[in-house]
């Protein structure tokens, strides 16, 4: 295809000769992908509506209004309680669906804007012709993009076309949230699914761009183990910390230190996904922690310089950092904090100002920001070390005596944490109550302004827990990136047959209902049972933050492959696209189905054949809303934690309604055949980790399971139910199609029970939910 390049270059120079004319050549795709184009490349809102309605007909939207009101236009506030309608005619169900759509649009836009920034930055640096190279074991390099957009991106410049398409779709979906647009909750849901699908596309674009452009691990199951935890930072060195999700400036910090040969003289670390990506760039960088550590960490005063980029950064960062004399450098137009734009000022001036106590600067040139961050830290770390950021223990006790045990803090706390009691015992000299609070605390900080005595609750908690904080040192396997084609070739068959009982992905943020550690516990349960475990984002960090008796984290105990009994940390939030991507790669690589522009067939494949289940235990964000519904459209169920019921909407199946669980059997002339509630839900909120574990096993069951596969899945399901619920599940018979499905160990007992309930054998179909395939695949 060199001929084309040549001609284009020729054209460019030819045109350039003609003066005064603005010429850009934007979107020439050179595509070497030979797969035939499917029916739905670059789908618009309505293209996949039929598929959405198939899903939504089984998995009905379940709405939990978070407010009775709508306040989105000046006719409001409108009271939508029960049967009432708003001044625009909307009802409470449609309003919840609309809010979910709005949030998903925000989520997809956030990843989209991030991807755009990353791609344009790398194009500027490397050129739009820079090859997207994910290594020799990855040829299906962008499964979401390939299946949705219908192209295989080969060069960075190709991603522009992907983003152009994605941005158009996000704008289209967002427009539907305007007053007086969509009137049906089902169609709002369909639009949420659409923008959720787009979200995976743009996440993928962002991550393959940064992998290829920044040299991150390329699906490396042996990615290095890196340090994580509040206790990992060597406080004798200058400390530069990046907070957010966009690692561009972070890489410049590392580069600057490398250039100065001082990487070992300065502590570079990160909070939230930027931290993941920092370690993907440079393995000696440290992960301080996830979202719920931000406020604690800033307050600790350990950082000399905090560099914020974008997303999930506490909005009071500048205010809080200033209190402990930490310099703040804002580096993204998403977060400017009202700071003066110093992008074009001389470096030395900015460095001097920040070193002299100017609280912050906005620097939109990443290279300059990187240098300034390092130089400022080098200059101020010495004198900052004397700073006392937290009250000492005596002071904590004294402060605690001010508490009048009014209970306002507890009532405001999203977790209802027992602060008043802890204060009371602290006042008497026993700080253990405060330490207990630390274990569960989300670090959200809302208790403090609620306190009528103005107690610095978090600082008291942090000092009380100081030993714990110092001991927070763990190992995390750095984000490996996508799943290899070779891995897919290995695990594709057992996944589809069911003999690998499931793929469980722990993803999302840190808004837990009951402390941390739950994720590691859940993950280990499935690792021991040889499920494939995947992790990303804050969840991947959280899993690292628990050691066993031997002082080992799961990442040390289990390999990083995408394989049974392994745990693969794919990376930061945008790497979530590799999880949906792995599901898409199975039909492509193992089953040799065309994926190009072929959304419905692939989603139908995943829904019926791939026992994958996402667990987003602490999700709080709009990005996570988009990711979840994007998974759902692909046929991947998602379990969320209890707080996520505030997303306002779930997709629940009704296993008690038999009619909902029929599919077409391709090998029986398209006959409708009952397959049971497999999977039972598409988006489901679990109250406790115990419930979540049992439900995870259940949601990995698929119509296509072979008897051997079903037997394995059922035995885990039954076993887990007995372990956590103290009894067999009440619904297991519905999953038994033939006696061979029964776990061998319990076979006799179970057979007896089956007879009692009048069980009749069923059939293992070649399942599809798409009528057009009911007689024959393609």
């Amino acid at each position, binding site marked *: 295809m060199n001929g084309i390049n040549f001609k284009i270059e020729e054209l460019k120079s030819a045109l350039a000769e003609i003066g005064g004319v603005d010429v850009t050549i934007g979107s020439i795709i050179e595509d070497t992908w030979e797969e035939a184009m499917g029916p739905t490349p670059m789908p618009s809102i309505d293209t996949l509506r039929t598929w959405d309605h198939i899903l939504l007909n089984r998995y009905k939207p379940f709405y939990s209004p978070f407010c009775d009101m709508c306040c989105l236009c000046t006719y409001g506030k409108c009271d939508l309680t029960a049967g009432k309608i708003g001044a625009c005619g909307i009802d409470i169900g449609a309003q919840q669906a609309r809010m979910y759509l709005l949030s998903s649009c925000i989520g997809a836009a956030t990843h989209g804007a991030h991807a755009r920034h990353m791609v344009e930055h790398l194009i500027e640096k490397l050129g739009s012709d820079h090859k997207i190279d994910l290594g020799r074991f990855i040829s299906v390099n962008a499964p979401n993009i390939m299946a949705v957009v219908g192209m295989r991106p080969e060069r960075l410049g190709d991603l522009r076309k992907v983003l152009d398409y994605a941005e158009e779709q996000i704008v289209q979906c967002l427009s539907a949230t305007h007053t007086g647009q969509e009137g049906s909750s089902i169609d709002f849901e369909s639009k949420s699914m659409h923008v959720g699908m787009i979200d995976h596309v743009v996440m993928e674009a962002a991550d393959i761009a940064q992998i290829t452009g920044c040299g991150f691990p390329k699906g490396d199951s042996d990615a290095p183990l890196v340090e994580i935890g509040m206790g990992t930072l060597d406080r004798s060195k200058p400390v530069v910390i990046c907070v957010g999700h966009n690692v561009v400036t972070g890489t410049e910090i590392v580069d600057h230190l490398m250039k100065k040969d001082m990487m070992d003289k300065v502590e570079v670390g990160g909070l939230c996904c930027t931290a993941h990506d920092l370690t993907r760039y440079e393995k000696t960088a440290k992960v301080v922690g996830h979202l719920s550590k931000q406020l604690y960490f800033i307050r600790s005063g350990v950082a000399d310089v905090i560099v914020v980029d974008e997303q999930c950064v506490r909005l009071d960062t500048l205010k809080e950092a200033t209190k402990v004399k930490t310099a703040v450098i804002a580096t993204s137009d998403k977060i400017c904090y009202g700071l003066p734009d110093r992008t074009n000022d001389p470096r030395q001036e900015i460095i001097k100002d920040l070193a002299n106590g100017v609280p912050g600067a906005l620097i939109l040139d990443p290279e300059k920001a990187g240098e300034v961050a390092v130089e400022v830290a080098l200059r101020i770390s010495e004198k900052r070390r004397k700073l006392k950021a937290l009250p000492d223990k005596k002071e904590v006790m004294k402060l605690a005596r001010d508490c009048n045990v009014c209970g306002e803090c507890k009532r405001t706390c999203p977790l209802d944490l027992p602060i008043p009691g802890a204060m009371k015992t602290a006042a008497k000299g026993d700080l253990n109550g405060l330490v207990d609070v630390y274990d569960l605390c989300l670090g959200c900080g809302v208790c403090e302004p609620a306190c009528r005595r103005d107690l610095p609750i978090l600082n008291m908690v942090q000092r009380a827990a100081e030993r714990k904080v110092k001991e927070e040192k763990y190992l995390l396997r750095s984000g490996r990136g996508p799943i290899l084609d070779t891995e897919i070739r290995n695990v594709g068959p057992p996944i589809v047959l069911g003999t690998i009982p499931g793929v469980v992905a722990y993803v999302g943020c840190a808004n837990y209902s009951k402390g941390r550690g739950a994720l590691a516990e859940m993950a280990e349960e499935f690792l021991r049972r040889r499920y494939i475990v995947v992790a990303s984002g804050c969840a991947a960090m959280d899993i690292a933050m628990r050691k066993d008796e031997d002082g080992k984290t799961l990442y040390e105990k289990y390999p990083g492959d995408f394989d049974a009994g392994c745990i693969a940390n794919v990376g930061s939030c945008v790497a979530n696209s590799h999880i949906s991507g792995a599901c898409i790669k199975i039909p492509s690589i193992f089953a040799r189905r065309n994926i190009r522009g072929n959304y419905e067939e692939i989603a139908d494949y995943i829904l019926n054949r791939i026992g994958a289940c996402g667990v987003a235990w602490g999700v709080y964000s709009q990005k996570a809303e988009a990711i979840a519904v994007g998974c759902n459209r692909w046929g991947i169920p998602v379990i969320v934690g209890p707080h996520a019921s505030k997303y306002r909407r779930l997709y629940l199946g009704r296993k008690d309604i038999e009619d909902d669980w029929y599919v077409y059997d391709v090998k029986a002339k398209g006959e409708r055949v009952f397959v049971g509630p497999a999977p039972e839900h598409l988006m489901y909120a679990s109250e*406790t980790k115990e*419930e979540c574990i049992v439900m995870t096993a259940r949601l990995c069951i698929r119509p296509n399971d072979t008897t051997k596969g079903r037997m394995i899945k059922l035995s885990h399901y039954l076993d887990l139910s007995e372990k956590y619920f103290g009894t067999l599940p009440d619904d297991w018979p519905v999953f038994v199609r033939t006696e061979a499905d029964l776990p061998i160990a319990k076979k006799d007992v179970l057979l007896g029970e089956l007879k009692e309930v009048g069980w009749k054998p069923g059939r293992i179909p070649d399942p599809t939910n798409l009528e057009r395939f009911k007689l024959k695949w393609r």
Partner: protein
Amino acid sequence: MAKEDNVSINRSWQLGRGIGKGDMPRVISPEVLGKLIKKAKRPLYVFGPSLLEAKYNGKLALDYAIEMAEAHDVPVVAVSHAIKGFLQKGFEPDAWMPAVNIVDRLRDSEWNGIRKEGQHDLVVLFGVFCALGEQGLSTLRHFAPHLRTITICPRYHPSADMSIIIDGEKLNKLVETLRRD
């Protein structure tokens, strides 16, 4: 303007400036709750996993729940892993399922109830995690006009139709009321 349009009402100048039902507690006593349960045609207890941990007057909430269930015949759904606690105590609930599943069925006016005797008309929640419980109650409030909801909790739940704000004494009183006649 007619006189009627100028009536003074002791409420927000316009409906809808608070949440629909306002933030005013509709709090009832154990006696009233007892009577409401007894009067209901098809009441239901939804008992959640917090019962396994919470204590009132030193006694496990789970024990109060079992006493309630045994004092007066009302079907029980154990949610989440609460089932384990009940079974360990030798009490067999009518059913167990996740909180969202029972709410999903309760909002369906066609559902036939836990004992297949018809959809319930009164639901009493005890021991469900507050944030999730509140959302479920919100679902019922908007989409299940056929039933009334009551929470048993140390806090008042605005999305419930009524709340009883408990301590050990009130729980004892409730069981007592249920046992009577």
